[in-house]
């Protein structure tokens, strides 16, 4: 037993990711952890979306299934698994079956390179960001084949519109990503495409790329933030799957388990593009103000934040337990909520224990930033009206693309201003 702990500790002290060290066992463990974490995140997103959207619309959302609707996602999952599996007549069975799997494959494979910490990634590819953009563009194939295989015109039009939208906004996303990668090349070690090295460059340059070259970083981030919402077919760009327009678009004819695969892939894709945004502009796993507020006391203070946040959640659970109705039929729900609060409190207390605190800090800050993006997604859905399709394409090609190109040129010019000034003086000198 002591040997096992020794082995685990000696592994966790290494400075390479499992893929970089060629360690298959640990790579498999990390893959399973990411998979489980992603599933829990999708379940939590389902509940959070319904509750937050409800509260924004001054109503309560699901309250019946568990205490405050906490077991609602599980009820939804059971319902979807037990539904009848309908295949429309005349549909191409092979393609109808493959299409959801392509989308799920593309959405999950992206997480191989997402960096939760300096060594907490499954692997650190040399071409990390290129891999993520490429694999997430494979989901367009799944959507197009899903729409076509349904043998019905609403899904076909929805699929064609959805894939046209995704392809257009991929171009804008790519340009914004290129200007962020350009900023990494202004360190001494040169530019890099690897996700972990991008965050390290931000650490060395002492500034998150969001704030670098003052408006340029924020505008690039803005272009990416808009394009990523359009890329994942979420509001306000969700015309292809809006119920009032096209009766759920390309996944109209899918029911039960297959629909849940599309839904799983959509949320995973949201988390994946948010991870790209967090890594490229918001400093990845770095805590806020790593250089300004440095020193041992600040390190200690910031490392207590994960534990304090879980304790805060536990306190809210207990407060709501006290506010539950005192009816005898509510006893199980009250006990359940108190139990949930106790579990959260236990996790919070566990996060004060020093070895865990040091290692989990990076993962916590990364997850907190991605969670902020998820809240933004839900906020957009509750606030903005839907774009019409031609307005959508006009924004993608006529507004975001020229802005991205201009931004790229400006970032390069501002970054190389010293060399450009010297060249200009040479030219003027030789005239």
């Amino acid at each position, binding site marked *: 037993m002591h040997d096992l702990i020794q082995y685990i500790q000696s592994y966790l002290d290494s400075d390479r990711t499992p893929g970089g060290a060629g360690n298959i066992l640990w790579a498999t463990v990390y893959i399973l952890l990411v998979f489980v974490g992603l599933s829990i995140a999708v379940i939590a997103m389902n509940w959070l979306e319904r509750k937050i959207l409800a509260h924004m619309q001054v109503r309560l959302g699901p309250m019946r299934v568990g205490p405050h609707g906490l077991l609602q996602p599980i009820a939804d999952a059971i319902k979807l698994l037990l539904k009848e599996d309908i295949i429309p007549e005349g549909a191409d069975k092979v393609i109808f079956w493959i299409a959801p799997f392509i989308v799920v494959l593309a959405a999950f494979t992206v997480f191989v390179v997402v960096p939760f910490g300096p060594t907490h990634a499954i692997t650190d590819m*040399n071409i990390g960001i*290129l891999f993520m953009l490429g694999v997430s563009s494979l989901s367009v194939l799944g959507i197009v084949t899903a729409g076509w295989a349904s043998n019905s015109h609403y899904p076909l039009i929805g699929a064609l519109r959805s894939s046209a939208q995704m392809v257009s906004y991929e171009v804008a996303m790519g340009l914004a990503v290129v200007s962020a990668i350009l900023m990494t090349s202004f360190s001494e070690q040169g530019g890099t495409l690897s996700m972990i*090295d991008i965050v390290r460059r931000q650490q060395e340059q002492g500034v998150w790329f969001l704030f670098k070259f003052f408006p340029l970083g924020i505008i690039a981030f803005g272009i990416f933030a808009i394009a990523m919402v359009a890329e994942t077919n979420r509001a306000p760009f969700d015309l292809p799957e809006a119920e009032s327009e096209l009766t759920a678009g390309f996944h109209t004819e899918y029911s039960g388990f297959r629909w849940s695969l599309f839904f799983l892939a959509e949320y995973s894709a949201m988390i994946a593009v948010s991870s790209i945004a967090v890594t490229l502009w918001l400093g990845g796993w770095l805590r806020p103000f790593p250089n300004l507020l440095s020193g041992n006391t600040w390190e200690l203070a910031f490392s207590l934040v994960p534990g304090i946040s879980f304790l805060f959640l536990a306190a809210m659970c207990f407060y709501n337990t006290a506010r539950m109705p005192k009816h005898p039929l509510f006893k199980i729900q009250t006990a359940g909520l108190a139990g949930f609060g106790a579990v959260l409190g236990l996790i919070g207390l566990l996060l004060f224990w020093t070895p865990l605190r040091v290692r989990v800090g990076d993962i916590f800050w990364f997850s907190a930033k991605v969670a902020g993006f998820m809240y933004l997604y839900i906020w957009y859905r509750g606030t903005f009206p839907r774009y019409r399709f031609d307005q959508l394409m006009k924004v993608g090609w006529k507004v975001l693309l020229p802005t991205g190109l201009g931004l790229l040129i400006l970032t390069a010019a501002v970054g190389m201003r010293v060399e450009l000034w010297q060249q200009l003086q040479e030219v003027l000198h030789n005239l």
Partner: protein
Amino acid sequence: MNPSVTNPPVATAFFFYLLAATMIIGGILVITRKNAVHSAMALITALLAQAGLYLMLYAPFVAGVQIILYAGGIMVLFLFVIMLISIERTMKERQFNKQWLVGITAAAVLGGLFITVYTTVTRTASGKESTLFPSGNRVAYVDAQNTQGIAMLLFDRGAGTYMFAFEIASLLLLVAIIGAVVMAKKRI
């Protein structure tokens, strides 16, 4: 000049044969299926297996470009066009040419030529035998150098031998965009 292999990769032969089998089966499905969408899906599988083979050849940037451009761009274009032209009628027609026998004979002759070239054992003047491609000369994989190396060849002022070709390629893409738009418009 011949650095030894430092970190030998894992299960190379298994992955090579797996990916090669995927590509060959994908290729055979492309040329024999009646339904064009099935051919397109088989081609996508073959292209992704090809990206895996590029990774085995220590060319990660080319693998990334293959996934983004070929599998994620060109094949989407193919699928759009297949879906916009009606194919139910074409699935009932005859699939193969009238000259299919001549075609297969020509391909067989080409195959024979390949086999001859790859298995020729030449004898040099001092009596040593050698085939066309001697094996060996493995290079250690230096991490984080592939993309930078390609960028040096394409863009560097001193060692960049492909800058002109790069500019011509961008001109070619411009011509292709204009050509495709003109071709597909109803009225010019």
